[in-house]
């Protein structure tokens, strides 16, 4: 078709690794018309980012190569273009915004300098006109008081504001095509909703095309006109968003759409004994100033939180980043020091020494967020799972220990034959299962789940949620489930606690709370998470 702004035909990308060529993208074709938004969705490793980067020729050549394909943009063949010509296209006609706004901005340059550099490079603009243009851009992307912000450094801005600056930089030369590579993944849900709204508004106003890369189908539905579903380097289905969402054809698309975690939370157990209880728990980090390091104030990471979880229940703790939810989990397990009583199974554990704490550790376990960081890369998974047994059951015979490891692996749905492999041989979801196996091999009563699904793809998230629920039912486990992802929390939590800035905003049975949130903040949080709606000003952080 001739009306297309960008036309990608039969594009393949190969990476060379230790002598072997590996195909990351395999014969992908799609096109974007002027003013249109096309979304690329798929799991991590499906090749969506690589596709987008090869449009701008930003891959690490010559490790990467294109065995086949063409990329037509405004009558130019980008893949054949020499480096000095493609530089004129980058940042001018096609611009990109990345996932992580902190690392995309130079921490040593002010906002004015960062945006000014783009204006200088591509338009030769300096001095007063440049400053005027920068202010215009900043107000366009909705940064309040842009004059005051000109001299700010990236670390002085919030995550959402940093992403807005990134967008301002991308828009500086009024590009025809904006590539957004998971621009909201690193942001809180409320901020995510704001950024999406901003992108949509800017797109209509500037009449530019957008290639939106994401793994989140909710975002696709909200923002895109057409969608390409990628799996293992291939586009398995593409079409209008309405059509794909209502009548998916490819089985993978169907699976993705059905991957929503099923809401089936553990029931409330008002008669069951209380497993863990805190009263006015505080974690304050002192701020020390001056020569004498006098404590001048405190960062109140957790400020007076009281919880009480009964056996078999799941307490969901939700809140944005920086709300203190992870700190609360670590404090309850006594992995960081805190103030205020912590009672576990009727016994006070606050103030116990490391060795006195050890008998309790068998009954309280934790699963972390990052499946890549939570397993020591130098230990086979059998060693990883065994470690707790060495501490708590030092007298087990080798065979018994092995049997328990095998049983734990079976319980989390992994083939026990794989137990001598090393973590890097497993996928993210499998690693998370290993982390769960490490926790359950000790037969604990209480498990803190610290965002166990956040780093995983949608399909895997649903599987892990099912696994956790299944384990809870079988072993009558008590969970403290920490997450910013309300859909996952809704699927598991029997009670809900909303935190903000270290304090409890609202608490109650999950069913009631989801239906009738009382505070404005909770309402805004739910709206952003479930409908990607923005809240009226002042309720949430900008």
């Amino acid at each position, binding site marked *: 078709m001739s009306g297309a702004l960008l036309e990608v035909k039969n594009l393949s990308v190969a990476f060379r690794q230790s002598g072997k060529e590996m195909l990351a993208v395999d014969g992908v074709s799609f096109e974007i018309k002027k003013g249109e938004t096309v979304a690329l969705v798929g799991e991590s*490793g499906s090749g969506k980012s*690589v596709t987008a980067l090869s449009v701008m020729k930003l891959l690490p050549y010559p490790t990467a190569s294109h065995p086949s394909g063409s990329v037509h943009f405004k009558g130019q063949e980008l893949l054949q273009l020499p480096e000095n010509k493609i530089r004129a296209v980058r940042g001018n006609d096609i611009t990109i915004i990345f996932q992580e706004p902190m690392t995309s901005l130079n921490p040593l340059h002010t906002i004015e300098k960062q945006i000014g550099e783009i204006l200088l490079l591509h338009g030769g603009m300096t001095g007063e006109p440049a400053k005027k243009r920068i202010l215009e851009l900043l107000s366009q992307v909705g940064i309040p008081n842009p004059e005051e912000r000109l001299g700010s450094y990236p670390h002085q801005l919030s995550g959402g504001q940093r992403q807005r600056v990134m967008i301002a930089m991308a828009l500086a030369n009024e590009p025809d095509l904006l590539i957004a590579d998971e621009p909201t993944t690193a942001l809180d849900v409320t901020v995510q909703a704001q950024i999406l709204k901003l992108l949509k508004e800017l797109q209509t106003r500037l009449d530019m095309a957008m290639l939106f890369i994401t793994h989140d189908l909710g975002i696709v539905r909200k923002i895109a006109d057409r969608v390409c579903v990628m799996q293992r380097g291939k586009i398995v289905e593409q079409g209008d968003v309405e059509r794909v969402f209502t009548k998916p054809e490819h089985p993978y698309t169907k699976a993705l759409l059905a991957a929503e975690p099923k809401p089936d939370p553990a029931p409330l157990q008002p008669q069951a004994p209380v497993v863990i209880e805190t009263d006015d728990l505080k974690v304050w980090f002192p701020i020390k100033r001056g020569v004498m390091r006098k404590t001048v104030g405190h960062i109140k990471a957790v400020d007076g939180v009281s919880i009480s979880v009964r056996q078999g229940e799941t307490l969901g703790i939700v809140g944005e980043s920086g709300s203190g939810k992870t700190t609360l989990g670590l404090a309850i397990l006594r*992995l960081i020091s805190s103030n205020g009583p912590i009672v576990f199974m009727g016994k006070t554990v606050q103030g116990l020494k490391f060795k006195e704490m050890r008998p309790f550790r*068998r009954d309280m376990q934790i699963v972390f967020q990052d499946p890549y*960081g939570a397993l020591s890369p130098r230990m086979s998974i059998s060693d990883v799972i065994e470690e707790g047994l060495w501490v708590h059951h030092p007298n087990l015979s080798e065979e018994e220990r092995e049997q328990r490891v095998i049983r734990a692996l079976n319980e989390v749905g992994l083939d*026990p*034959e794989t137990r001598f492999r*090393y973590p890097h041989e*497993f996928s993210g979801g499998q690693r998370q299962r290993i982390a769960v196996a490490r926790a359950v091999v000790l037969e604990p009563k209480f498990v803190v789940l610290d965002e166990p699904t956040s780093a995983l793809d949608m399909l895997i998230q649903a599987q892990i949620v099912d696994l956790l629920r299944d384990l809870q039912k079988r072993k009558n486990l008590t969970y403290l489930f920490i997450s910013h992802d309300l859909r996952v929390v809704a699927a598991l939590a029997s009670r809900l606690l909303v935190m903000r800035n270290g304090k409890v905003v609202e608490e109650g049975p999950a069913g009631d709370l989801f239906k009738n949130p009382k505070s404005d903040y909770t309402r805004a949080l739910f709206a952003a998470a479930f409908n990607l709606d923005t809240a009226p000003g002042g309720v949430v952080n900008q």
Partner: protein
Amino acid sequence: MDDRVAREVPELTSQTPTGMAVPPERRKMKLSPINRRRWQNFKANKRGYWSLWLFTALFVLSLFAEFIANDRPFMIKYDGGFYFPAIVTYAETKFGGEFETAADYRDPYLQKKIAEKGGSIYWPPIKYSYDTHNLDLPTPAPSKPTWLLTEEQCKSVVERKKLSGCRDLEYNWLGTDDQGRDVAARLIYGFRISVLFGLILTIISSTIGVAAGAVQGYFGGLTDLLFQRFIEIWTSIPSLYLLLIISSVLVPGFFVLLGILLLFSWVSLVGLVRAEFLRGRNFEYIQAARALGVANSTIMFRHLLPNAMVATLTFLPFILSSSVMTLTALDFLGFGLPPGSPSLGELLSQGKANIQAPWLGLAGFFSIAFMLSLLIFIGEAVRDAFDARKTFS
């Protein structure tokens, strides 16, 4: 962009439980995949790989220096019996001599005695040890390598020993030093003592350094603060001058020198290991181990030390070469090993004192340069092998 995108994760495990039917099998002792990859990377660096083999071969050879360069034969067949003078000290009377003292096998009198009984002597390739004085020097010491001598210069010895010419002399391949000792023999022994000294110093100082760094990094806080200040003060002591003072008070032997150098060399790795531990103690798998109730010492050994070992191993060859350098420098200045010991530094200082005998300085320079180059090449290859981002195709 994250490099996981390009790497395909193979579907290794089925998601369905397969029951308890799996027989417990013991794992084999083998390199973990990550180490295998490092070994491949190391081998891919040809220069470093060959340097390692060459260095190992030279070092192993020099460990058997007694069988390469010695003034005692390694075996004597005499009167139907076998004797091993290189290992056992025999009295002269054993071979028909007159004195109860240790036999001097280079003495023509004793050689004649053995020959009379139909015995045969098996000499090592070089018939001098590091402290053997060549008594048949044709020219005043330091004397040229034998193959550079003119017939004119040889004449006196040739006539005295009733030989036919220069070719029949016992060869000093690299000449002799100013006391008439064979330079080649001294090089072999000197290489051994340098490398041994360097290795021992490196191993002990790394062990202390790693332990100190580990404690600082893991516990942090006040421990770290006090330790760091101590190290800052300690390293600000001008160590070379202190070494000179101490070695003029104590009799400088091998182990005294080792101890003195150790006082200052252990700090070199502390900062590195401390940083690794500081970084590592907040990893999630360390947190997870803590949540399991694993003891601090176990966490440090099992989980954190391997992380720090990468940095440590990368530095080891460089520390080794600097240890060798320090010993050589001390020897050169005359504050090192006791007089008479074979040492490369001493050879260099002789070379400086006897400019008219260039074979001394050249032999010393080339052997030290060669040894240090090998170590640096190995070090580079090790560094590349541990670099996770570097790929060799």
